[in-house]
């Protein structure tokens, strides 16, 4: 049995499928849906959450989706009031905030991408601080294939793209240090800086920049989560317990929509405990390494968020005393 504390494992709000079509999806844009959901988290044994920061809800009046500062201020007045509301629902902590820049890779203007990403990542960091979060976990690039959609010469422009990414992340790291929050890089299989491609980027960033260990993303890329933990011991800022049965053997990571392999449709991210990642064994590895940082479970792409909550709890019951 592992010693990992079940009560401290957070659940990511990414279990709500905000962006893809499915019946009843309209609920996800109204405040009432989320306010009921918060109360269900403690019922499933979760007292902390992770929030994806999504600027898209700021545009077009969809402020019922609680995923950026504008929405929180519109519906609750301030981050402090929102935290108070969460506490009243039994959600005691916002463990972390994530940020993904794909929204801003939408044309051939690279200055737009870096300008908008820098601005909104800064907002995400400030919001994370206001929420009392432990970290901001940022994806260092959009999908590789999304970049090449608009910048087909990416391989030749990679050095310049990397230089600007280093500038952006270094600035964000300084701000994070000033504000007393961790900056963590996500390691996603679809990234320009995913898998082994992360190292050269990491080498150019301040030591304060930590790494996210995401079990499913590593599995897809064919990397052992335990090996990754050993290789980057001491630099892991947060852990995502995610599950999958997908292994990318055909270069899906380079396609424009890599979470949806076009040659063979599959649910890449499975509900925790229903895929092929040995999450029980990995939890034991975390204990062996004495990892004490935040652990977040994520059921991204779930077909049923309420079933996913209980499936995740059933998994955690297996790995926790």
């Amino acid at each position, binding site marked *: 049995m592992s010693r990992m504390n079940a009560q401290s494992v957070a659940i990511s709000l990414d279990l709500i499928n905000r*962006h*893809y*079509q*499915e*019946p*009843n*999806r*309209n*609920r996800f*844009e*109204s*405040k*009432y*849906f989320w306010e009921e959901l918060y109360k269900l988290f403690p019922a499933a044994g979760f007292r902390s959450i992770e929030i994806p920061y999504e600027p898209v809800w700021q545009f077009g*009046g*969809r*402020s*019922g989706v609680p995923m950026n500062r504008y929405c929180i201020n*519109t*519906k609750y007045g301030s981050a402090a009031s929102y935290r108070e509301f969460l506490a009243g629902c039994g959600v005691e902590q916002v463990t972390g905030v994530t940020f993904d820049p794909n*929204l801003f890779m*939408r044309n051939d203007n690279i200055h737009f991408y870096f300008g908008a990403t820098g601005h909104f990542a800064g907002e995400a960091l400030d919001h994370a601080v206001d929420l009392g979060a432990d970290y901001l976990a940022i994806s260092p690039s959009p999908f590789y*294939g*999304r970049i090449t*959609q608009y910048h087909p010469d990416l391989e030749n422009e990679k050095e310049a793209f990397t230089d600007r990414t280093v500038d952006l992340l270094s600035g964000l790291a300084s701000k994070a240090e000033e504000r007393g929050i961790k900056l963590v890089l996500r390691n996603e299989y679809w990234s320009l800086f995913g898998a082994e491609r992360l190292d050269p980027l990491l080498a150019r960033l301040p030591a304060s920049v930590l790494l996210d260990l995401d079990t499913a993303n590593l599995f897809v890329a064919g990397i052992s989560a335990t090996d990754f933990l050993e290789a980057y011991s001491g630099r892991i800022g947060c852990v995502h317990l995610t599950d999958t049965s997908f292994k990318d053997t055909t270069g899906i990571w380079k396609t*424009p*929509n890599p*979470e*949806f392999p*076009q040659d*063979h*449709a*599959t*649910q890449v991210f*499975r*509900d925790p405990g*229903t895929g092929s990642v040995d999450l029980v064994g990995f939890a034991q590895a975390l204990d062996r390494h004495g990892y004490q940082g935040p652990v977040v479970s994520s059921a991204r792409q779930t*077909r*049923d968020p309420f079933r996913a909550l209980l499936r995740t709890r059933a998994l955690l019951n297996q790995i926790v005393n």
Partner: protein
Amino acid sequence: MTNIRYANMCHWKSIPYKKIENFRDFYYEDKTNSAYYSDWDSILKYQAALGFHGIEIAPWDMADILPLFGSPENFTAFARERGVEVIGMFHGAHASHAADHFDEAVKSGREAVDTIVRFGGTYMNTCPTQNHFGCGPLTREEVQQCAKVMNEIGRYATDHGVKLGLHNEFFCAINLPNHRELIESTDPRHVHYCIDTAQISIMGEDLLKFYDDYHERISTFHLKDTASAGQPDSVRYAQDPEITDDGTRWFWEPGLGTLDLKGLYHLLKKHGFKGWMGIEYDGSPDLLASMALTRYYLDNELRPIYD
């Protein structure tokens, strides 16, 4: 040949696949209906099967459609193979009331026209400026500025075979006090009007009177019902009123609200309307069910009046 053809205003959220070849395997992975809403092949077949042979896309669809299909032309060909044509695209003319935004608003509108042409569409239903909250009430000069932008984009649209139709929403800065002023300030040769039956009714226009008054300007419709006609300023001018906090719906399928849609069809007959009628289901929990219910109501209640 009927006078009215029916299209679907696209409210599908991102559809991640073009066509799922391994449908049965995909379904068996978690045995839910997600598989049925995951590829354009199925979505377009649902439309065609229910007699909606046009689709009006939205600019927010582009970020997914373009990487998925590679180009507007490819999407159009794919849809056409399944019996659906792209009739146009919605456009939001952000900040067109602001004089210092003129060049940007016109440029953005022209780019949208160019995109529509590539999709083979002929309609650009255009929200003339943003929400009332944060920028309203508009001055007379600002309304005229909106008209100036619409005329400029409309001229370009006409030259490219596209009809710009003003499309008003109940929460926009163009609202009941200046709605007709804007229409009458625009050039009828280049600026038409798309009646969103529910939106203008919630705003406070009388649907039948409005159509009767402006029938010569009407290029197309967004057909939907509402049970909330005539909302007060306090609702229409509030911050982000489109999606309610408690799940109250503004929009319903034809026949499930209180609008006199049969009266509208009698007027369509009187004025001999010919063209595309877009049906729209914003806020529906089940777009496919809404589409089927709408088809039933059209065939049994409205098309017998005028077809």
